[in-house]
């Protein structure tokens, strides 16, 4: 199928983008990398009157490390972030998750901000953002606010962005020397939609025990969720096989997945246990 007709604008500054958003409101959709939006346009799931293309606005594509954080502008291409030494050093969990996002062709074009703002229930970066307590920098004409990841992802394809607002950038805390991270997922393809994925961010103490841990799982509900019970079992304990297994079981018991055509609820629960173990083991390996 082909998209319904729309008016196309490609502003070159962020001010113009925000002004267009203010004028068109919900009649407009922002086009970032288009790897999720264009399929929805082709299938006429969405039929906006106006498409505001962010691809010609260079000020939205940047990676900086500043004041203890890594900041990615919304139009940073996923492949650019994946290949960035700054991302690898400052945010290893983001670097670990990025190769899972899609095929090479999708990651060449897809953007960091696009996948966050799209908020697909099976997207990896919302889980990464939640695990790291990332901050979403949101702008509208003449205003700016910061939203914690825990308050940004409201449901499948739904964020707390309001009419006239745009995700400007995402800020991740910079990893310290004791930080370890891994992202583990199972899907039908290596680089396609996952069934379940787990993001693990750890702090390791000098004696090799767990000094801090943040786990987020995706694929078990409309948004990623933190795994507080599993975190509680891991923290201040050594990373031995029994502890990891117990944490995995606790994670599985704490989630409430549904059956769908891709996997049963029971399988998603098993994957949650397995992937918590796997992600933590990989992180500290």
């Amino acid at each position, binding site marked *: *199928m*082909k*998209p*319904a*007709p*729309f*008016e*196309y604008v*490609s502003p070159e500054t962020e001010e113009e983008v925000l002004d267009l958003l203010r004028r068109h409101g919900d009649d407009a959709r922002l*086009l970032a990398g*288009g*790897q999720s939006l*264009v*399929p929805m*346009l*082709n*299938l006429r799931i969405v039929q906006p009157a106006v*498409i505001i*293309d962010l*691809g010609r606005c260079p000020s939205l594509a940047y990676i900086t490390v500043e004041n203890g954080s890594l900041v990615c502008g919304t139009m940073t291409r996923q*492949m650019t972030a994946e290949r960035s030494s700054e991302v690898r050093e400052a945010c290893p969990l983001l670097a670990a998750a990025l190769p899972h996002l*899609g*095929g*090479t*062709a*999708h990651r*060449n*074009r897809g953007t960091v901000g696009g996948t966050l703002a799209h908020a697909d229930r099976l997207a990896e970066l919302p889980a990464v953002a939640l695990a790291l307590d990332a901050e979403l920098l949101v702008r509208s004409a003449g205003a700016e606010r910061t939203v914690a990841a825990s308050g940004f992802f409201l449901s499948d394809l739904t964020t707390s962005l309001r009419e006239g607002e745009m995700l400007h950038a995402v800020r991740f805390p910079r990893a310290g020397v004791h930080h370890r991270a891994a992202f583990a997922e199972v899907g039908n*393809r*290596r*680089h*396609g939609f996952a069934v379940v994925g787990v993001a693990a961010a750890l702090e390791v103490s000098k004696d090799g025990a767990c000094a801090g841990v943040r786990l987020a799982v995706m694929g078990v509900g409309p948004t990623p969720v933190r795994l507080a019970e599993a975190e509680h079992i891991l923290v201040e304990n050594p990373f031995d096989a029994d502890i990891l297994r117990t944490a995995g079981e606790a994670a599985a018991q704490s989630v409430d997945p549904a059956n769908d055509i891709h996997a049963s609820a029971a399988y998603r629960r098993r994957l949650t246990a397995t992937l918590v173990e796997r992600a933590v083991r990989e992180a500290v390996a």
Partner: protein
Amino acid sequence: MSKVEVRLTVNGAEYVRSVEPRYLLVDFLRRELGLTGTHIGCEQGVCGACTVLLDGQTARSCLHFAVQVSGSEITTIEGVSAEASLSPIQDAFHRNHALQCGYCTPGFVLTTVELLRQNPSPDETEIRRGLTNNVCRCTGYVNIIKAVAEAARSMPTGEG
């Protein structure tokens, strides 16, 4: 609906056309330029039949509007070899019977161009992972993987 000007360099030649903003890059290539080697499969970015090189990187031409990439350089299957000859990758596909109906082949070849440029001697696992987002509905994957491995062996490093 008002039209917009699109200017693209495709396989080294420059083209300027006026199309509707909703016109997909794949339709621009096929209908406006007559380059029908780029195939339309799923129109939702899953199958890979429409894969082209956009400024040197693989991209789904069904997931871009022509206007959005105006000013870019595109390489399609028609541009991977000189006229009436086969590139080393195409030749390896031919020799290994890596195509049956051929519908997916242009996408596989362009995906392979990028794969071998980034990793000139991939092992089988790396080939499988590199091709995982291209679908062959004839399911001729074994020969496709053999062809990519043979192409890698036959090509001097960096040649695409």
